[in-house]
């Protein structure tokens, strides 16, 4: 019961924050966006103030009274100074860099403030991630790189950025969020499945060009019968031995180029593993400056070479299965 309430409350706050901090390319922090809270230090100072007050009362000491009220006023004015240190800061999304899953996606963000102001010790970052400390003193503008852990391939959109500062006196914290409109693409982690010799089959036949699966010309192997396989290709010998139906597979040779084929990776279990394997191969071929093509169940990329081609392939691998893949999305890099 309690748990449910907690979750409800949490999601409600989240909704509220999302409503209050809509996504945009650029955010300027102002009264509507900045929260101000006392910190633990100000509570400690409050205890010291109470001590001074008791001292002032018990010893009838006017100066101790004065000091205690002065410090109290300091806490109050710290609210204004700390708020002032954050208000007017503009956060702008600059660009993002793609990465492989498990690595860190890097986002470039620009912070700036009006030229007649100075800002110090502003923290910006994501929870449990990179946290940058920015001063906007003489330059009034700073571009920083923030990195964020990634775990799985696909489009990666970081959560809200936290921006906070305790400057100048650390008694008060001014806090704000910015949901910047930026994303990066996370490629599958490049993991070569070494125990497989399948990749070599392609190398063996590199002389003849890249295989096109489900061809009819050359025998390439045996696979479990799938509906639609030609009866001509059924491996009767295997059927006699095992009682199971296997099809002989044949390949065509389209050209001399290498083909990386998702469907051909029969021995690898799991889509993600296959994608990781393909990703590793893309990197390998790119390094060897080979010409290669990529064939995914829903997309084919014609053989080519070079970094641009590599990126296209990696993006295709990253977004495999993504509904939005077909829509041409704005590339950030």
């Amino acid at each position, binding site marked *: 019961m309690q748990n449910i309430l907690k979750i409800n409350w949490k999601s409600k706050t989240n909704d509220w924050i999302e409503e209050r901090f809509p996504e945009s390319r650029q955010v300027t922090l102002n009264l509507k966006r900045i929260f101000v809270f006392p910190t633990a230090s100000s509570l400690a100072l409050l205890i010291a103030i109470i001590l001074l007050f008791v001292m002032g009362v018990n010893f009838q000491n006017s100066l101790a009274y004065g000091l205690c009220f002065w410090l109290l006023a300091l806490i109050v004015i710290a609210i204004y100074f700390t708020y002032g240190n954050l208000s007017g800061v503009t956060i702008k999304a600059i660009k993002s860099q793609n990465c492989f899953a498990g690595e860190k996606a890097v986002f470039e963000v620009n912070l700036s403030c009006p030229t007649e102001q100075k800002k110090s010790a502003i923290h910006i970052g994501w929870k449990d991630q990179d946290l940058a400390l920015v001063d906007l003193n003489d330059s009034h503008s700073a571009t920083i790189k923030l990195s964020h852990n990634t775990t799985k391939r696909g489009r990666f959109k970081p959560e809200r950025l936290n921006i906070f500062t305790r400057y100048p006196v650390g008694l008060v914290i001014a*806090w704000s969020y910015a949901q910047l409109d930026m994303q990066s693409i996370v490629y599958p982690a490049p993991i070569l499945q070494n125990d497989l010799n399948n990749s070599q089959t392609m190398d063996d036949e590199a002389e003849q060009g890249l295989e096109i699966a489900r061809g009819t010309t050359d025998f390439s192997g045996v696979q479990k019968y799938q509906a639609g396989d030609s009866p001509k290709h059924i491996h009767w010998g295997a059927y006699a031995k095992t009682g199971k139906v296997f099809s002989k597979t044949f390949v065509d040779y389209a050209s001399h180029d290498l083909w990386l084929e998702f469907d051909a990776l029969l021995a690898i279990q799991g889509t993600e593993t296959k994608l990781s394997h393909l990703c590793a191969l893309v990197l390998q071929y790119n390094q060897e400056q080979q010409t290669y093509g990529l064939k995914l169940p829903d997309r084919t990329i014609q053989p080519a070479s070079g970094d641009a081609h590599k990126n296209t392939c990696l993006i295709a691998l990253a977004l495999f299965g993504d509904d939005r893949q077909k829509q041409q999305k704005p590339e950030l890099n």
Partner: protein
Amino acid sequence: MFTKGFPQDRLITYSGMLWLLAAQVVVMLPFLFYLPIWLFPILFFSAGWRIRVMLGKAEQPGIMIKIIMGILGLAALKFSGIPIVSLEMTASFLMLGFAYKSLEVIDRRDGMVVVLTGFILIGVLFLYSQSIVIALYSFISVVVLTGAMIAIQQSGKQHSNQNSRQNTQSKIFSNLRLSSSMLLLCLPLMILFFLFAPRFQPFWTVPNAGGHAKTGISDSMSPGDIANLSQSDGLAFTVSFDNERPKQRDLYWRGLVLQHFDGVTWTQEDPETPPRQLGTNTSFTFKQPKSQIKQQGEAVNYKVIYQKTGRPWMFALNPVVDIKGPAGFTSDFRVMAKTDIIEPVLVKLTSYPDSLKELNLDETTRLVNLQLPESENPKSRLLAEQLFSASASKEEYIQRVMNRFREQQYFYTLRPPLLGEKDTIDGFLIDSQKGFCAHYAGSFVFMMRAVGIPARVVAGYQGGEWNQKGEFLAVHQFDAHAWTEVWLEGQGWQRFDPTAMVAPQRIEQNLEAAMQQEGSFLEGKVLSLNKMKWLNGLRQQLDSLQYGWQRFVLNFDSETQQNFLKNLFGEMSIQKTMLVVGGLFGSITLLWVGFLGLAKKQNIEAPEHRLYRRFCDLLAKKGVKREIAQTPEAYSQLAASQLPIFAEVINEFTHSYSTLCYNPAAAAEPRIHLDKMKSVLKQIK
């Protein structure tokens, strides 16, 4: 709660560390006067270690080292002779921790602990002294502590690239500027709190701050004592009169009654007899036993601020009939503070100087005031008997003794010759005839008692310096004086001052005038402001400042508070108080918002666009309106054709604007173009 999940650099930077150390030194420095000096080397030792660690030259001290040092420090405290349960011990303990803490200040939280302890230590310092100097010094301490608070929040990275020394220097100043501007902006709110926050009675009784030297008049008087006191130019107390000030010669500030004489020294009572048996001096009431006083003459109402003396004596015009403040009466018509005076205290008094005191003398008091050591001073006794037998009445006898001081070769001097251990009265009265007020008072009382007239020595101050500026009377230590009281049938205790016979200037003017010939006024104090006549104005100014400080800041108690608020705002109800406080608080925060520019609309628009907008507005007024989609060039052509007088400047303006917008080289140096645009705008206007 919010910072969970934000592993940030919590470490204090090197400059933050130096700031903390500077703040520690500034806070500890004034304690040099009050606490053991060896606490300081500990600070420098641990700070030195810490700096070496930060520079990579030493290891972080291990836990064993910390424990050993802690034990050593505590042992040193134990053997320093400070009583265990005392304010001094608490302060020393706090200081010890404060000094040691710098050994392990690593992250911001440690730094904050140091700063907060510093604030509390400043409060402790106020228990020792509340003078203007200490207050001003503490102001600086608070600024430095706040500067340290800012420094530990700062990141340390800007240091690396530039000339680091210059950078550090400018950073120090910018930190100081920031902290002092914050604190100065706080002041109005602080004053608001100070004026309006309710004042409470002490929650529980507290030990007095120790280490207060006892100054001023003591409770015993040997012949040289008051002369020594006369060498001090310290302030004893200040007085402001509600009505007219009594004449200078009537300003006898009575503080102590010395009834017992052991041959050399006058004391309040026989030290051998327990005081309670006699029940004369130390019994203490909060109501003047009125029956003892036959009230006569005019009342004198006045306020006195007694400086700290570490003793409970209060000095007042005699007899006092009404007291407002932490003081009470004794049976011998003195006024005494409830506790030793360890900080300036304000008391309101009402006296009737012409009243008669104790018309019926009880037997115990009579005996006490006739006491004399046996078989000493034979010459004086003989002289007394001769004079007494020649007189028709007690009054005449008194007059003869007084006259003798005037007629014979007596000298009033601050450099009396030494008197022996025995027959001191003879030594002065018959032989040397040179003495200070204590000699005259002592021997006069001896002469009275020798023939059976009850008499006693009274110690206090006489006169004082009128401060025209502050309209108050400043009584200094060198105004200390001793005189006598003689009990006469039908008149009670009457004041007689034999010194007035020898040195009338002492009473009419002051000690300085009386000592002009001898030149012994404040002999030992070459640099005393009281000796430099040309600095009199400055000295009075300082006195006046101190008086105001003590009167209005230090003694701002609930009564003063109520009177003050009443004067300012009239009768205060709770609603009215809330309204006033709320209003003032609101205006203070408005002041802050204005100062920090928080309400200012932020200029995000670039200056060229702003100027162009004004340009369009101006032309629109002249009849050429710009369509939303119109390019600046097209608009310029249109405007130039319609307003041929301005054609040239319009083109110029548009050209500058386009250059700024589209030519990055020009945009780097925008000043020339902006100036041109501005001048064009002026022309069109």
